[in-house]
């Protein structure tokens, strides 16, 4: 990979041809420029086809049936679990729990491990730049259990203040839960180092990898993460399925999550025996087709190579920041391109983010405006909202030029 010129790491035109939605127009004559992949990515044909094939040929419920279709469905679903485990370097498919999304994965940990292990006064360390998904479940547990929450500071460049982290670790935390890549600032956090420090302090670690797993190679064994969570829909897969990775031994020691079918070994009218993990965390019929779609997404991403995706991302974000900096009155937030994933959040003097996004939309450019489910970090930077452009494997430098042209149009309108 490294021998290739960065421009050639991905054959972007060939990649784009795999995404049917990219050829559509948002209004007559205006082709879509999709710069909102941090919210959700688009889906390649192979993923759409895998879901459609499942419903056309193998649809059945899993695990309990003994007929042919049930066996095919079970094999495909469990095959997807194996693909996920391999993709993130997990030692075994048994360490992969399918959930609805990264949000549910964090809630699962808070509601099972958290409720069983945390008592009033116990400390959980988060950071100031977490997505609401990694704040609210802990705020709920704090309200219910009286656990304490403390937050690693974020500096003005959008980096975690590791000195404040080290100080917090001296207070004997039980858990550290932090984002691997900020969905607002794009900051990639030094996860391996932070995990090692947390372990030395006796804490477990949950990594919110919703933005990182889609964009660069993530290996849970190298990281030594205890829990790691992500969503299929941000990595070319379908909505409705997400992943909780749990370290071997840890999942087994946790109480079940929701009750119902498939999560039990035996049920009597006066009690039940839970199933082994990961099944004891998957009550009811899961998102079977979606998990299979996630398997297809992983196959697609592995075919291109996560290193190549990362380089492509880097090239896009570096170019985007260079071009955006040319625009007078534009302020972007977060660290330099080399420390970021493919996300740029910015403000434009005189124009509210909603107006910016709406005017860009009239030119076919899809960006996000708002607080991106991270109100506290916006408050810290003194902004109610920002405009965010986020990039993925199908984006091109030309699309960034169109974004910049669009922003000049916004300026012209609001000057």
């Amino acid at each position, binding site marked *: 990979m490294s021998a290739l010129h960065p421009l050639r790491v991905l054959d972007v035109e060939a990649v784009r041809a795999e995404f049917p939605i990219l050829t559509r127009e948002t209004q007559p004559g205006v082709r879509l420029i999709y710069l909102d992949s941090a919210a959700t990515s688009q889906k390649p044909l192979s993923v759409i086809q895998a879901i459609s094939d499942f419903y056309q040929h193998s649809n059945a419920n899993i695990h309990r049936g003994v007929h042919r279709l049930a066996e095919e469905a079970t094999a495909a679903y469990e095959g997807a679990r194996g693909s996920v485990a391999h993709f993130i370097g997990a030692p075994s498919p048994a360490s992969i729990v399918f959930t609805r999304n990264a949000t549910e994965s964090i809630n699962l940990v808070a509601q099972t491990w958290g409720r069983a292990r945390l008592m009033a006064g116990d400390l959980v360390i988060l950071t100031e730049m977490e997505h609401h998904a990694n704040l609210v479940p802990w705020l709920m547990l704090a309200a219910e259990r009286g656990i304490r929450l403390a937050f690693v500071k974020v500096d003005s460049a959008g980096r975690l203040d590791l000195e404040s982290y080290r100080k917090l670790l001296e207070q004997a935390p039980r858990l550290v839960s932090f984002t691997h890549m900020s969905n607002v600032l794009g900051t990639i956090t030094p996860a391996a180092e932070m995990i090692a420090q947390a372990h030395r302090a006796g804490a477990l670690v949950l990594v919110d990898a919703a933005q990182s797993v889609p964009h660069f190679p993530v290996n849970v064994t190298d990281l030594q993460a205890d829990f790691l969570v992500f969503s299929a829909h941000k990595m070319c897969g379908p909505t409705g399925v997400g992943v909780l990775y749990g370290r071997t031994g840890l999942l087994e020691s946790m109480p079940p999550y929701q009750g119902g079918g498939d999560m039990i070994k035996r049920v009597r009218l006066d009690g039940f025996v839970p199933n082994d993990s990961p099944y004891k965390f998957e009550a009811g019929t899961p998102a079977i087709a979606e998990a299979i779609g996630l398997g297809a997404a992983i196959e697609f991403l592995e075919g291109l190579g996560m290193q190549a995706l990362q380089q492509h991302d880097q090239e896009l974000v570096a170019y985007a920041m260079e071009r955006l900096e040319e625009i007078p009155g534009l302020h972007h937030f977060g660290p330099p391109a080399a420390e970021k994933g493919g996300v740029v959040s910015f403000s434009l003097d005189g124009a509210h983010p*909603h107006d910016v996004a*709406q*005017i860009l939309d*009239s030119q076919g450019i899809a960006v996000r405006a708002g*607080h991106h489910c991270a109100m506290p970090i916006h408050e810290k930077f003194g902004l*109610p909202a920002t405009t965010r452009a986020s990039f993925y494997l199908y984006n091109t430098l030309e699309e960034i030029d169109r974004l910049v042209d669009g922003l000049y149009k916004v300026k012209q*309108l*609001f000057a």
Partner: protein
Amino acid sequence: MDDLYREQIIDRYKNPRMKGALDPHDFSYEDDNPLCGDRIRIDLRVDQAGVVTQAAFSGTGCAISQASADLLVESIIGRSLTDVKALSKEDILGMLGIELGPVRLKCALLSLKVLKAGVYGIEALESELA
């Protein structure tokens, strides 16, 4: 010019006619849309007959929220509180002259929400005092 951002909206956003505060006032109410940080406060003076004699708004936010507040506040001067209570979403969209999706609709309707909450608040207060 984009259809959505008719000249009137941009003009009202940049040069609002009704922006300011009334002191004293008979009524003042404020609310925000935490999703985007739009904030609107409306001050009114109302005569004995329940007719709005003066009105002003203050706030920050997107062009749609601020322009709709400016247009709304201007439109209610000389009208009765009963008329104000009858104002609807369609009236606001009519004044703006555009169609909006669900997210931007909240921006456009924030000023109406503030105005109505305030007016109903006045009436509750008056009935309590009566």
